[in-house]
């Protein structure tokens, strides 16, 4: 009886937490179909008529931003995965002079507030002629994303059995073969974690594209939604529609990657 009531209580808490998480999203979606007067008359539920045209207005203004964000995010992910997996493998599997110093100096970069390097990074990018290109949205952010990713991958690879690498070596596999055939396949869960966290960071990156890639041709969706225009009575409904549209690609990523993501987060938590 006691167990049953505890379980009911637990379910009630879970339902409450789920409600508190989901309901604000519902308000966002519901508000995206409303005019501003409808929002103020009834903020918590749906109001009729629904203004589907808000989505058409928003989509027309942000679709190029969506394409740009996909390109930039893919570039960031590919570059980050290549750099951090190779560096993680090196840090985890080899001994070399200055290894610890390199590792810690890299980690220290995570402690530097972003705004301290915004201007120097902008000037470097400007001197390299990278402003208002896809590259400026890929190279500097990837170097930042790679720090934490390298740390995660290093930690994961250090937990892999040494004997696997030794056996591969005995069988004649070189470093690169061991990396691609042994280390990478066994690190799939952590690579998924790195992919998802960096996808979110890259997709939502705002300040850097604002200062370095604000031209119409290359600006990502996170900037495009700040420039949405509509008539005063359609606002902020059209803005909300833009927010919903811009988050759909992220939702798709989550739908397909939730399972491996959870596996990655819990990898190594339980010893077999």
């Amino acid at each position, binding site marked *: 009886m006691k167990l049953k009531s505890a379980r009911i209580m637990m379910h009630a808490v879970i339902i409450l937490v789920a409600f508190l998480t989901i309901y604000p999203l519902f308000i966002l979606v519901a508000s995206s179909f409303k005019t501003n007067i409808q929002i103020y008359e009834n903020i918590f539920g749906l109001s009729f008529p629904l203004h589907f045209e808000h989505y058409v207005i928003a989509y027309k203004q942000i679709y190029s931003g969506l394409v740009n964000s996909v390109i930039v995010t893919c570039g960031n992910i590919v570059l980050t995965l290549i750099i951090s997996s190779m*560096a993680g493998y090196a840090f985890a599997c080899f001994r070399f002079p200055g290894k610890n110093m390199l590792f810690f100096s890299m980690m220290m970069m995570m402690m530097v507030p972003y705004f301290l390097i915004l201007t120097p990074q902008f000037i470097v990018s400007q001197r390299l002629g990278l402003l208002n290109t896809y590259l400026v949205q890929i190279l500097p952010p990837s170097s930042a994303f790679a720090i934490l990713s390298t740390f995660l991958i290093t930690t994961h690879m250090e937990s892999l059995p040494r004997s696997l690498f030794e056996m591969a070596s005995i069988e004649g596999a070189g470093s690169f073969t061991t990396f691609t055939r042994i280390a990478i396949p066994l690190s799939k869960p952590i690579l998924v974690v790195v992919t998802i966290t960096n996808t979110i960071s890259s997709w939502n990156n705002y300040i850097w594209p604002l200062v370095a890639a604000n031209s119409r041709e290359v600006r990502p969706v996170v900037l495009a939604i700040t420039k949405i225009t509509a008539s005063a009575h359609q606002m902020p409904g059209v803005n909300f529609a833009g927010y919903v549209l811009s988050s759909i690609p992220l939702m798709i990523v989550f739908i397909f990657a939730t399972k491996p993501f959870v596996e990655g987060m819990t990898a190594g938590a339980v010893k077999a």
Partner: protein
Amino acid sequence: MKRKFIAMFMAMVIAGGSLTGCASSSPSPQNSSAPAASQDGGGQAALPEKSESDERWHPAKPVTLKWVSWEYNQDHELQYLEESLARYKELQPDITIEYEYIASDQYQTWLQTQLVGGTAPDLFLVRHTWGQQYLRDGTVYDLTDALLNEENPYNPGGKWIDTFEPSVIVQVKDLTNNKYASVPTNGVIVKMFYNKELLAKAGIDGPPETFAELLSDCKALQDAGIMPYVVGMKVPEGGGFHWYERLFMDPLTDQFNEEMDLNGTGLIEVNEIARAVDKGVIDITKSPWKDIYPMIKEFSQYWHPGYNAMNNEEALEQFARGEVAMTFSVGTHAAALAANPDLKFEFGVTEFPTITKESNPHSSGIPYEIGGAPQGNICIPATLKDEDKLRAAIDFLQFKTGVEDCSLYVDRLWGVVPIKGITSDNPMIAGLQFKNGVSPLKLYETYFDKKFWDDSTMLGQLYLQDKLSLEEYTQALQDDLVTAKDAYVQKEGWSDENNWGDKQD
């Protein structure tokens, strides 16, 4: 050995990459530091002479200027902009203006990065105080010579500077060096909006003209079951509340203006406020300064109860729902409100009721209006060295402050402009122009002291809810003023000897 080499190479790749920079999506604090000085050395570009064949100057070759602002983003605003730029294109076929909107939340961060990198657009919007700082830093073009010595071809008949409302343009001038860094292209005015149907329902003929009438009308509305008034007093914005502080304080403290106004501009600016605090002229703990708060408190019993949680825009939205009889809001909102197809009532605009001697014996009875601050201030970066582009940028500023474009602005956006003599036949638009003098005392502005500004709202909320006494409230505000004054004296070296930093010509 080979493995070690590969390992070192891989590790150095990532370490090197990490040192080149980081990026994150974390929200940013406002970067208040000024940009570094101009990279291209001193000296301003010489301007080409005006064409003899035309009243106006024309560029020798096609010129394209990029203009960035946070101002125009709604359909009706963009429609005005399109008309405005099309007209300019007719007048200046070889000058193309490319407009870009950047949201205001990170605008300053964006702008400072561009100024430091030398990539700022040819024309950009600033607050006039930012522009003054940028000019001191050498990152924007000094417009003083053009303003003082040129005639505006789009508003002929005198020097360009003389076409502006003196009370507006004086605020643009940096009194520490007597220079102009930006040109204001529009203005702001705050008016009382009233719902004609709700007033009629409560048996009220028209909007109140005095504060005493306002209180009795509010009482009549309340008795009729109608919410009388809505105010936005949300922390930290607090904008609405500060408007009332100024509206009540100006007529009550008129008697001190002559004593406080060191340079005779008619406005009591930062250094003059500091001096008045130092001399004990401004003392919020004493009458008549402190008298405004009990008056506001009496008025607040008729406010929509959510005033602590609303900003000015939300207060206006409450009014737009048709359930509140009156509010006080920025004039340009009237255009958007009138164009709203969902609006179910007729509204009017008028000045806030006058504080007469009937309400307070100290009152001068002079009505003041909130607004008059220079807005739409446009700067030109110091890095713009191409003579034609620089001349074109100034020409565009002259067009924006010319009769034709200012009239278009007033007509389309129902706004106010900084130049003299613009009127409208539309009674609603005419009602949104200045009828009275501009609020002279700049005490309840962010300029003087942010803590005082914030505290007056935060502690004001407690005072209005009887959680803080008048004495505690006004003492806290006075303490803030004295602390701010001391900080100015220490930082700027202001004293009687240097006329409190005033270098007004």
